[in-house]
């Protein structure tokens, strides 16, 4: 009955011939050879709408064209994995017919030019990814990188990014329970804003972003479509430059209230079993969600764009398809269920509209004012995106670093002076200024609030809890991407182990520079090697994530910064452990070995103003052994506190546990290293434990069985002082009150420079 229609071009848009002749596709980020592929796929010249659709679907952000080949190296399977990469978020079984759903995603470019909305919509997007799986979002985390706070621009970015995250998470009512913030000149023009969401799912409620069943309706729910965020995905796939400010309209504006309504409505639809498929309209908006759903379902789709709820008059198909307006969801339901969906949307005051239907011919057809305006084989958008394996080159700096000896740079520093500098470094100091702006207690399930190694939330109705942490050290990865990649995974796992959890799996956000530069691509490839090796050894599969490339300003790449979001399962609530010292008389033990490893350390940075040399090395077998020892000791009930040794080394870990526990410590150790080197080395695979006296031998025996070095360092005291003796000499003797004050005030002072 339907006649074969010709694909039209709108009068005011460039004609297909003009797009070809003037290479207008380049403005949309497509290469000449990519344009050639499109012409072959269509068997004709594409019109402006079609070029736009291909350009976003084949952007780095949506297609992973520079990373796909490398991402295949990640282990993604495991006995508990219910859903690996490829859907909105990864899903891991946690027993009791429950699963944990989580994902991390970047919003770096938008946050660089519009920090409040950029960060807020980053949070909104990741929440939608989680509830589009059918899960109830229960926690948010983030990982932030900025330049140095001495710059007014950086203070502005930091303040507004934090406020944007707070605004969205607080309003929608999901606690922001953890995260990290690092300041380094490497991120000066290109801050990183990575947001993670964790949800809990009942197994039988698992949803997929899929379109199936010929004739089934495609339903649009949520906010109406405006001209905001057009080409956001393409913008995220370019370097930042002076002209980036002009792309401010590519940043979307978030409305967490709308998302709260959307969340509750979708949860009701999931509960009633109404949905065949659901996908968030995130990057590349309606285009990406509808095309991916059709391609995954091996079906086609026809959409009538006149039916799409629109916020502005006169929007073109190109604008409607490429808009990244927030708080929208695309649904596919069984024919006949439309009214039930509408009733739920009406209750929550949400707009909804049937905008099309599923077809059986794997074509992606768009109609606008009665005309066919796009007709594309849908699989070519999703599965036939180009795949590049750029050239790799070992950077010169990496070779030059081989001969540098960081120990020589710092060995003469007074340990006491070093500790005072480290505790008051904004990177090491208390992040209270940040997390007190986040509601971290709503949903009343937060058992370990921000400030410990990992946050913990309890799972209501069970005795279980989830530990979660985000981690990534760009300095280490810069100095040695392979080792740095291992460390990123290992440390995130160590953090959740210290909370009493078994690491289950991770999501990653790979923040790198321009992959078309051979040195950057080498960093990227090496980091993935290192991460994959650690994932295999620690049995923590990668169940989802995001790649953010082109993080450069004025041709200068950021430190390669893979961020790992790790989730672990605590079997019993009584295993929940924090880093704070608990009681005077408890014995302080150090598991693991300390070597002279100061390359990329906080102390090296504070002393020399830069990082150099090689970073700490990570032996995966040792790492695994130390983690298993600590987890067994916690589960045996022997551990009072556990704290991962990370940036700032042993000295900072001791100080933090004292500050947090409002107790003192007396520590005495023997070493062949210079005291300052031993105390501030950032050797990996080390965990600080406190145990009551009667359990010391248990833990030592367990460590010995596992081949883990275990040293008694001293004991927790009720004198409010930290005293550290090295080889019989007191090298640090500081009141906890003074350390606390320096540690607490560092960021507030840096944020109000006039009061210094």
């Amino acid at each position: 009955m339907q006649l074969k229609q010709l694909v039209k071009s709108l009068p005011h848009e460039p004609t297909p011939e003009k797009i070809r002749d003037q290479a207008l596709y380049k403005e949309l980020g497509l290469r000449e050879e990519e344009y050639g592929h499109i012409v072959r796929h269509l068997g004709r010249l594409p019109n402006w709408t079609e070029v736009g659709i291909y350009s976003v679907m084949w952007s780095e952000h949506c297609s992973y064209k520079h990373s796909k080949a490398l991402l295949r190296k990640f282990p993604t399977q495991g006995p508990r994995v219910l859903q690996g990469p490829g859907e909105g978020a990864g899903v891991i079984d946690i027993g009791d017919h429950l699963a944990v759903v989580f994902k991390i995603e970047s919003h770096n470019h938008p946050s660089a030019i519009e920090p409040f909305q950029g960060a807020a919509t980053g949070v909104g997007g990741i929440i939608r990814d989680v509830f589009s799986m059918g899960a109830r979002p229960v926690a948010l985390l983030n990982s932030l990188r900025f330049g140095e706070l001495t710059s007014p621009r950086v203070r502005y970015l930091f303040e507004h990014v934090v406020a944007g995250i707070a605004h969205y998470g607080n309003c929608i009512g999901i606690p922001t329970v953890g995260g990290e913030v690092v300041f380094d000149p490497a991120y000066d023009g290109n801050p990183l804003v990575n947001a993670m969401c964790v949800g809990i799912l009942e197994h039988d409620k698992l949803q997929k972003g899929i379109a199936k069943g010929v004739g089934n309706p495609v339903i649009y729910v949520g906010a109406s479509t405006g001209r905001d965020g057009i080409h956001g995905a393409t913008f995220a796939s370019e370097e930042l430059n002076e002209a980036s400010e002009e792309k401010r309209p590519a940043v979307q504006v978030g409305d967490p209230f709308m998302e709260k309504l959307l969340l509750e409505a979708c949860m009701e639809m999931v509960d009633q079993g109404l949905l065949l498929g659901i996908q968030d309209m995130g990057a590349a908006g309606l285009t990406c969600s509808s095309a991916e759903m059709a391609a995954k379902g091996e079906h086609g789709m026809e959409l009538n764009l006149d039916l799409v709820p629109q916020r502005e008059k006169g929007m073109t198909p190109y604008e409607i398809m490429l808009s990244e307006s927030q708080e929208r969801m695309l649904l596919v339901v069984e024919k006949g269920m439309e009214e039930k969906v509408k009733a739920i949307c009406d209750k929550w005051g949400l707009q909804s509209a049937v905008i099309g239907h599923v077809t059986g011919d794997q074509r992606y057809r768009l109609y606008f004012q009665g005309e066919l305006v796009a007709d594309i084989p849908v699989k070519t958008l999703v599965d036939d995106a180009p795949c590049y394996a750029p050239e790799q080159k070992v950077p010169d700096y990496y070779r030059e670093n081989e001969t540098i000896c960081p120990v020589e740079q710092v060995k003469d520093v007074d340990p006491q002076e070093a500790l005072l500098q480290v505790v008051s470094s904004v990177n090491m100091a208390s992040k209270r200024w940040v997390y007190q702006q986040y509601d971290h207690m709503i949903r009343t399930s937060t058992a370990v609030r921000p400030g410990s190694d990992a946050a913990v939330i309890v799972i209501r109705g069970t005795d279980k809890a989830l530990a979660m942490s985000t981690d990534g050290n760009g300095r280490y990865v810069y100095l040695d991407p392979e080792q740095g990649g291992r460390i990123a995974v290992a440390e995130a796992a160590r953090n959740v182990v210290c909370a009493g959890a078994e690491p289950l799996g991770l999501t990653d956000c790979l923040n790198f520079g321009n992959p078309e530069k051979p040195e950057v691509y080498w960093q990227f490839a090496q980091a993935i090697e290192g991460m994959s090796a650690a994932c295999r050894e620690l049995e923590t599969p990668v169940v989802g994530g995001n790649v953010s490339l082109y993080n450069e300003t004025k041709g200068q790449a950021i430190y390669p910064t893979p961020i790992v979001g790790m989730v672990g399962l605590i079997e019993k609530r009584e295993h929940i452990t924090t880093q704070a010292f608990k009681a005077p008389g408890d014995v302080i033990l150090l598991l693991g070995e300390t070597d002279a490893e100061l390359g990329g350390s906080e102390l090296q940075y504070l002393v020399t103003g830069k990082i150099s040399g090689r970073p700490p090395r990570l032996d995966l077998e040792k790492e695994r052994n130390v983690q298993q020892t600590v987890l067994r000791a916690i589960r045996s009930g022997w551990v009072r506190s556990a704290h991962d040794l990370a940036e700032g080394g042993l000295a900072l870990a001791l100080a933090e546990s004292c500050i947090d526990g409002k107790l003192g410590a007396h520590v005495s150790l023997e070493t062949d290293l210079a005291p300052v080197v031993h105390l501030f080395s950032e050797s990996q695979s080390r965990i600080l434990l406190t145990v009551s006296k009667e359990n010391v031998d248990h833990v030592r025996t367990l460590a010995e069985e596992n081949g883990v070095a275990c040293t008694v360092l001293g004991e927790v005291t009720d004198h409010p002082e930290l005293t550290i003796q090295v080889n019989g000499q007191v090298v640090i003797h500081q009141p906890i009150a003074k350390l606390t004050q320096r540690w607490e005030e560092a960021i507030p002072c840096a944020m109000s420079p006039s009061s210094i």
Partner: protein
Amino acid sequence: MRFAVTVFPGSNCDIDAIHAIKDVLGESVTAVWHKESDLSKYDAIILPGGFSYGDYLRTGALAAHSPVMEGVREAAEKGKLVIGICNGFQILLETGLLPGAMRKNDHLQFRCSIPTLRVENNETPFTLQYREGELIQIPIAHMEGNYYCDEVTLAELKRNKQIIFRYAGENPNGSIDDIAGICNRNRNVLGMMPHPERAVCDWMGSSDGMKLFTSMLQYWKENYGAA
């Protein structure tokens, strides 16, 4: 005792209030959608925290005109217990069930922490199990908790002992006279910025909020006799 928890679009502490009443206090509780206006079958009403209507216009301003607020007003007039927590307090101010108004925190940031409160008046249905002057820890989480009223109102609040909770340490929002919670003259309507429902188990960081709910239960049993 039958509790109702009102649910407005954008309420988000409703589940926490329900959890505190049902699972910790062990009493009956019903979530009541904002379009209901008949609350006659409930003994106490909780207006929970959150961002009703996204805080658009002013915090609590739109929710104050919801049908359910007619039921709340009636319940208050009949002497039933009404408690507004955080956004619920803001709504009670907007409806005029409590005097005064709310401003943005004086430091202009959202603040989430566990401050110490002093129980200023324990002769109310909400505080009878606390000691007068007792120091308790109850979490806060708000952007607009800077309570304000004019001098005449403040003098009246003091004279009638309507100031129920004050911040005992640092004032986290700049509220006048360190006010954290006030009640009406009849003592049956309480508004407070801190969240007692977030302090009902030790692992939450504090269980000091529990006595507020057990006080309500005791008051109701004594006055309406749990048959």
